[in-house]
């Protein structure tokens, strides 16, 4: 296996920003040390490059990466090493010196691995995946890598639940939970390597497993207008589901990043999936069924994790932590047992009401950094349509109590461009803010009112596959910008800060998430035209994307501005996430009924 020598390593890091991103050698790395392996050991082990298409600080905050890293490396025969997107300065040095992208642990060149697995969190990371393949000097299209024995390229993660826009580049996808299936796949891969089998054999062996999608085994037929006519074979790819979260303990020995990740704290997943069924929320449907960890076991594991890692903050992750049955027990026992250690807790998805406000008070222990509410829509009608069960009165009551208890900062999340949206739904957003200010003026002492801060975050709605809104057209860029301006102009200038997501970015995100196989051409062209780090606002370039869709003869609006027919075959219909299309259709009808009624 060829590795990057230390002299070349120093050379490529010259004048690079934050070189600490690339130095490896972290505490608790788990890969096999190849300098301690004999040649025959190297030949009998499977080397897995766990690739994350964003920079180190983002990827090292990702729990999925840490989970897979731990599971793979706990096996004697497998070794996983990490690789992240290099920042543009390192990329420039790599290309200038003709040095291939390398892993952090043993600095193995990426194309030397038996398998590269991308964890793709967001559609706007697609071009970074292609860039990493390119930096490894690999052909982008799997058809052009057919004769190459290794590396085999796979991908998983929430952004490939509809894998089609990335399908031509990836040999196989893992849809759903990766914990169990990854080992089954690597066992086959080991046999493929030891017995020198054909790639076709490997793919045919793993095809049987739930969760595996092999692009080369599906064919798509279209009508002239681009709508899918037929998908062959008719058999579906079933999502892989880990039935019992407690089968694996939490990651108690995470790799400690050398430079602070964006979420620099110990992470513990308490629950996967969400009961709520908000109709816009893809994760709410694709992560079903809801599975919880046993709170009693968890306390001990978390204490161990804090001791092993040296963190002084723990984050309990889930899609909606207030719905976790053991939340009170978990927090109280954890705080009790870690009393002398000054550990702070964060609950990133705590749905606030008068009950959970107590929890917020306990965990913010006097600091009162701020409270976050996600009403998502301005009127009750709109919230009913999207099935977001938050009532205005309950929220305002909660905010009132919060002000009484001394909070001064409130963050509010809203979406605009939702299906069936009317002017009143838009106008209700600034009205809600005004009402909150009135409450604050009523309750907060005059001398403290200056510290009141209402932070409003407005995002464009983006219809996603496997949601009841997967059929609806996205609002146009012009209309979204107009609606945002209406809100902005009606907002009080004092006490309020407002942020607005880029609707152009949202449009591309929509086209990629609802894309068919054809969209892959645009992704490739966009990459070749310079698109990368599309998730970073300073890099996103709408022009490139628009031109790439044009050049690939794909109508961008076909995927974004069109109301899909409720009965048409959707490109992602061949994936079975355990929720029937019928159920989603019914949910959509419910939303429609509410909209029509009033």
């Amino acid at each position, binding site marked *: 296996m060829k590795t990057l020598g230390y002299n070349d390593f120093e050379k490529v890091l010259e004048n690079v920003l934050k070189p600490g991103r690339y130095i490896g050698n972290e*505490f608790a790395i788990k890969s096999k040390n190849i300098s301690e392996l004999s040649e025959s050991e190297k030949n009998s082990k499977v080397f897995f490059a766990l690739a994350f298409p964003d920079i180190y600080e983002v990827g090292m905050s990702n729990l999925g990466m840490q989970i897979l890293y731990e599971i793979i490396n706990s096996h004697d025969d497998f070794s996983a090493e990490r690789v992240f997107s290099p920042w543009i300065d390192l990329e420039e040095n790599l290309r200038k010196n003709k040095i291939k992208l390398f892993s952090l642990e043993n600095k193995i060149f990426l194309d030397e691995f038996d398998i590269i697995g991308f964890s793709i969190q967001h559609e706007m990371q697609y071009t970074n995946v292609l860039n990493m393949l390119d930096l490894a000097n690999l052909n982008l299209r799997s058809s052009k890598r057919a004769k190459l024995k290794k590396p085999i390229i796979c991908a998983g993660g929430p952004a490939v639940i509809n894998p089609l826009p990335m399908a031509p580049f990836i040999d196989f996808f893992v849809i759903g939970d990766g914990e169990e299936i990854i080992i089954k796949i690597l066992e086959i891969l080991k046999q493929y390597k030891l017995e020198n089998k054909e790639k076709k054999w490997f793919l045919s062996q793993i095809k049987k497993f739930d969760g595996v999608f092999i692009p080369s085994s599906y064919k798509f037929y279209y009508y002239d207008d681009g709508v899918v006519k037929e998908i062959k074979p008719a058999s579906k790819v079933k999502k892989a589901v880990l039935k019992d979260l407690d089968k694996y303990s939490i990651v108690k020995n995470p790799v400690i990043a050398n430079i602070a990740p964006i979420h620099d704290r110990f992470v513990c997943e308490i629950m996967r999936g969400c009961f709520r069924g908000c109709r816009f929320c893809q994760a709410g449907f694709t992560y079903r069924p809801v599975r919880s960890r046993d709170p009693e076991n968890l306390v001990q594991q978390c204490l161990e994790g804090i001791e092993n890692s040296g963190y002084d903050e723990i984050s309990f992750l889930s899609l909606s932590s207030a719905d976790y049955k053991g939340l009170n027990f978990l927090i109280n026992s954890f705080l009790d047992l870690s009393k002398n250690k*000054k550990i702070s807790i964060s609950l990133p998805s705590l749905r606030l009401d008068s009950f959970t406000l107590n929890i917020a008070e306990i965990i913010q222990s006097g600091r009162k950094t701020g409270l976050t509410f996600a009403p998502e829509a301005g009127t009750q009608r709109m919230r009913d349509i999207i099935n977001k069960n938050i009532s205005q009165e309950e929220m305002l009551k909660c905010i009132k109590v919060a002000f009484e208890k001394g909070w001064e900062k409130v963050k509010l999340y809203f979406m605009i461009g939702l299906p069936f949206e009317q002017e009143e739904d838009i106008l209700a957003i600034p009205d809600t803010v005004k009402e909150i200010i009135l409450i604050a003026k009523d309750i907060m002492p005059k001398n403290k009112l200056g510290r009141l801060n209402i932070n409003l975050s407005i995002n464009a709605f983006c219809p996603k596959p496997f949601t009841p809104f997967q059929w609806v057209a996205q609002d146009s860029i012009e209309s979204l910008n107009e609606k945002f301006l209406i809100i902005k102009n009606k907002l009080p200038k004092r006490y309020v800060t407002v942020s607005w997501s880029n609707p152009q970015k949202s449009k591309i995100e929509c086209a990629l998430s609802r894309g068919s196989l054809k969209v892959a051409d645009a992704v490739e062209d966009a990459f070749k035209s310079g698109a990368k780090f599309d998730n970073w606002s300073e890099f996103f370039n709408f022009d490139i994307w628009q031109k790439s869709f044009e050049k690939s003869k794909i109508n961008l609006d076909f995927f974004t501005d069109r109301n899909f027919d409720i009965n048409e075959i959707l490109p992602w219909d061949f994936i079975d996430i355990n929720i029937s299309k019928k159920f989603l259709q019914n949910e959509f009808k419910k939303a429609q009924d509410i909209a029509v009624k009033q």
Partner: protein
Amino acid sequence: MEELKIRFKFKKVAEFKYLSHLETIRLILMAIARAKIKVKYSQGFNPKPKINLSFPVPVGLPSLAEYADIDICEEINSKDFKLLLNKQLNDKMSIIEAKIINNIVPSLMADIEFCSYNFKIKKLNKNLSLKYENKEYNFNNIKEIINNKIIDDINKSDFINSIYKIDFVFDENNNDIVYLNIFGYTKLSKNNKIFKFNDFLKYIKFLSNNNNLVVEDYFKKEAYVLRENILKTPLEIV
């Protein structure tokens, strides 16, 4: 509760030379937490461990002499401190020595007067004759270049105001290698300037290049405080 201050010296070499000052502090504090050494926290809403490091070493420069003072609130001897902490640290960034501070000392930032840096300079090729500023030079060995040319150049440069002392150490077994040891000022005292390592590195590389030499290795070797006009390391005074 028992309270004490510990001063420790650590190295930061190989890949770890790429970590910045703040990144280094973060890793050391996490290692201390893992080692279950009880540190004293500052007061207030955002309590922080009380740790003070010596002046930041430039990113990319390996160091054998980083220093830090930390407040501990348990009884621990310096050997255990070093041992426990090194179990939690990579060898390439690990504690060299620790001492309990028993007297009153100024902070490291205020106290350290000089840092010494080491450069290994090597002959680039056999030919040591060169034309420079219209003069023809012909040297027999690296010693002659250094003594007749390099020292002169440095003395004439602006850098000399920021340098307290220069030593050249010649390799007895190898005529083609010389070690340059520079003592640079880290704070203003009389008429001196502060030694800027990165600027000097560029300069010495440029000088070497002009003289058919190459700078191969460099690192920060030691930090010194002054006590009655004698250089002492920060650990010698506690």
